[in-house]
């Protein structure tokens, strides 16, 4: 093949600087996660100085009680916030690209409603909703395993339906979004029927489940989430050029040799799996998947090479900060993080919208 003649063979330094700046934003974000992470573990009903947090994490704890609090409660919770924030944001950024819709989020395809229905089904029909009610742990679900399993099962069922319909309709974003809208209503209606038939305590348990909460996951569940989120993120980063091409329009992408329908369907399944695992273990945590990509778009632009990792970092920051705030605002009562994500994210988001794009 003939090669184009070049006017000059120099490296475009100003462009490379511009790119380096994006990388710096992401590195700064990772640094912020580390700081927040230590702070998040150190604060709570019992204050643990940051230095002792670091010592305990390095296995050199002086205070055994503190070490137990850190390893049993705060560390898994902080890590869960990071992993879930990461996962919801990467699913969100992928969905916005796949569905060609800035309003798309991990829940656009009805995953949250499907999960909520699954949980309601487990609590009300399978009777896993024995309530504990005490000052310390407000309400909890008696048999979390069947609840998680049912929530996950119905998330997958929703995915399968959307996959089937999109395959029939040639993976068109419109078909996917509209099917998602239909499934959301269907599952919400079904959940309402179940709630109507339920007892007061069951109803409370179902409502409680839908408030997403990162303290729910144990180490094993955290491990499963981490594997799924990591695998999914690697998949999306490996396809970053394909997503850039799809953002430029389907025809442009096809002209660049991108198998658009295939990428859409696979991306949708990967994003939904990530979301399904998070929803099943933690409940519904809104807003993170919708706004984190937009926050990052306004700071470093639409280039998926930086948008994907940037959104992941932003998701982790937002969810970790929200969870820390959720544990502090009404201390000693702990709010579920889902209540706080919107409170934390919305003002920043509105500020970024008002300010416009960074130049």
């Amino acid at each position, binding site marked *: 093949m003939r090669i184009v003649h070049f006017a000059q063979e120099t490296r475009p330094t100003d462009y490379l600087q511009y790119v380096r700046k994006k990388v710096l934003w992401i590195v700064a974000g990772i640094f912020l996660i580390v700081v927040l992470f230590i702070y998040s573990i150190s604060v709570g009903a019992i204050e643990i100085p940051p230095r002792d947090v670091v010592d305990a994490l390095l296995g050199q704890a002086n205070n055994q009680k503190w070490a137990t609090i850190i390893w049993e409660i705060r560390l898994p919770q902080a890590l869960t916030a990071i992993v879930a924030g990461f996962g919801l944001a990467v699913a969100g950024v992928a969905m916005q690209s796949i569905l060609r819709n800035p309003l798309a989020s991990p829940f656009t395809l009805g995953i949250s409603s499907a999960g909520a229905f699954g949980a309601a089904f487990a609590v009300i029909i399978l009777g896993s909703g024995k309530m504990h009610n005490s000052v310390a742990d407000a309400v909890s679900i008696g048999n979390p395993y069947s609840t998680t399993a049912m929530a996950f099962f119905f998330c997958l069922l929703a995915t399968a339906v959307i996959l089937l319909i999109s395959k029939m309709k040639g993976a068109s974003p419109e078909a996917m979004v509209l099917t998602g809208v239909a499934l959301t209503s269907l599952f919400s209606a079904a959940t309402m029927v179940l709630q109507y038939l339920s007892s007061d305590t069951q109803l409370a348990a179902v409502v409680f489940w839908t408030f997403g909460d990162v303290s729910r996951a144990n180490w094993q569940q955290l491990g499963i989430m981490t594997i799924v989120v990591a695998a999914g993120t690697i998949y999306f980063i490996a396809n970053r050029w394909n997503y850039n091409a799809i953002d430029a329009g389907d025809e442009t992408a096809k002209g660049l040799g991108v198998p658009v329908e295939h990428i859409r369907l696979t991306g949708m399944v990967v994003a939904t799996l990530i979301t399904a695992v998070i929803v099943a273990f933690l409940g519904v945590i809104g807003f993170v998947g919708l706004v984190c990509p937009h926050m990052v778009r306004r700071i470093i*632009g639409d280039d998926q090479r930086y948008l994907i990792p940037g959104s992941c970092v932003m998701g982790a920051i937002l969810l970790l900060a929200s969870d820390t705030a959720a544990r502090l605002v009404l201390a000693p009562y702990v709010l579920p993080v889902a209540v706080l994500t919107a409170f934390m994210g919305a003002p920043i988001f509105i500020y970024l919208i008002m300010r416009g794009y960074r130049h």
Partner: protein
Amino acid sequence: MTLTTDELSFMYRNRDVLKKISISLPDSEMVSVLGPNGVGKTTLLKCLNRILRPKKGVVMVEGVDLSHLSASEVARKIGYVPQKAEAGRLTTFDAVLLGRRPHIGWDVTDKDLSVVDSILHQLKMNHLRLTYIDEMSGGELQKVFIARAIVQEPRVLLMDEPTSNLDLKNKVEILTIIRRIVNDHHITVLMSMHDLNLALWFSDRFIFLRDGRVLTQGGSDVLTPELIHDVYGVPVSMGEICGVRCVVPHIEKRLHD
């Protein structure tokens, strides 16, 4: 011949859109596909680079049957500038760099950067390299999309109405750029056109489609008032103004009164 097709046919649902299209595009020439709306110009372009799968027939680029190649391999032979593309929050450099996608492995190499850099210099767009394309005018944007297709280093460049929605100055500028690309890079360009005069001024060859078939193909000598009347159903006269051949449609006098 750079690109040839043999009895290419395409059906959309049960409707024949293209019927046994056989065309050949010589090396380093600018070829216009002409014909009324809905005749299958865009469909033909999309069948050539396999965005649409033809029902029958063969497309060969430099003797290679495209149906034996992967999508990325096809993209290294044929570039495509669609009529509509999205302009996101990307700099010109990034938007053009996307055209290297068929060549990029895991990450961008210095070669990719230098190809983009030199095209931006050639098209005199270097000062816009860090400008966001969502803030650009239609003419600038079209240049970005053309640059994107050229950095694919294709042998054939397909363009779907490259000058629609542009003002006269930009029309002439874009076509002059395409002309220069054809000459400098020895790329063959096939573009669908509506404006007969622009096609006449800039193209080496013409392909006229009617009812999904090739009515006529050839050099500028095939362009006659009879042919144009036949294809578009409008009587025209052809003449020279300032040494340039022009097509003027016969408009009923009373419209002006």
